[in-house]
């Protein structure tokens, strides 16, 4: 059985951390066997999630971990922060992405780039989003 890469914790505090997180996600995806187009989608999703943390919460974490579901490989990314939180997730998802101004969280796009999208509704403060992509 191939050894899985280690879970990674990346703190998002400076804008340079955004690219770092995206790069780490790309590396791990590549290691796990995702093809180029797939791992480009993963790193873009991470970039968008990290951008949101930096823009709205100023600081938070991106956690990247490998998944092995009966030899079906995948990657899981959790984006969490103690920022303002998302009051209405279904609206945020529906509103899509606007390139005008700074409105829009781009979450619709993130959910399209990945296979699974989960928003933690039980969380009292801040935001926690978990996304998964399978090979």
């Amino acid at each position, binding site marked *: 059985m191939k050894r899985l890469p280690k879970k990674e914790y990346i703190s998002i505090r400076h804008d340079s951390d955004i690219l770092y997180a995206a790069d780490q996600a790309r590396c791990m995806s590549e290691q796990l066997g995702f093809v180029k*187009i797939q791992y480009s989608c993963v*790193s873009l999703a991470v*970039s968008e999630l990290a951008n949101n943390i930096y823009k709205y919460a100023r600081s938070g974490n991106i956690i990247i971990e490998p998944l092995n579901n009966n030899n079906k490989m995948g990657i899981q990314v959790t984006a969490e922060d103690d920022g303002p939180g998302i009051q209405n997730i279904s609206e945020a998802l529906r509103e899509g*992405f606007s*390139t005008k101004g700074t409105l829009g969280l781009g979450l619709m796009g*993130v959910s*399209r780039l990945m296979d699974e999208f989960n928003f933690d509704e039980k969380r009292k403060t801040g935001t926690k989003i978990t996304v998964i992509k399978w090979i």
Partner: protein
Amino acid sequence: MEFNKNSNTYINEFEGVLIVSVNSDLDETILTEIQTSILNTIAAKSLDGVVLNCSKVKILDSFLIRKLEDITQMIELMGSNAILAGLSPEIVVSLVTLNIEPKTIKTALNIELAIGMLREIAAEFEEKQEDENLELEDIDELDETLT
């Protein structure tokens, strides 16, 4: 010791065309410097246009695409033309998946083709200018007879 990269590191002038090397790790500050540098150069010289070379871009996220849209729009407001070149298959797949609807930006597969497009646009504009100049002469004559 930090290597101080400024906007000039990323901008090259080649036979009347500005070639800008865009990559994923350009932050807000340097992108704004590059933008200013491009616009000042357009104001100062006669150029056929600007090629935004994205062949080294690994991740084209919403932040970067917005900056590129803005820069492109500013270049065109100054009466020049901008072409995005070298977008990779992976970039365009993820861009469309993200469902971003970028404002209309002209694109080309690579720098050579982008320069070719800019030359064509410049040549067409020159031809049009020549035709319009003839009309202007008629207007001048008419103006004189009226006053």
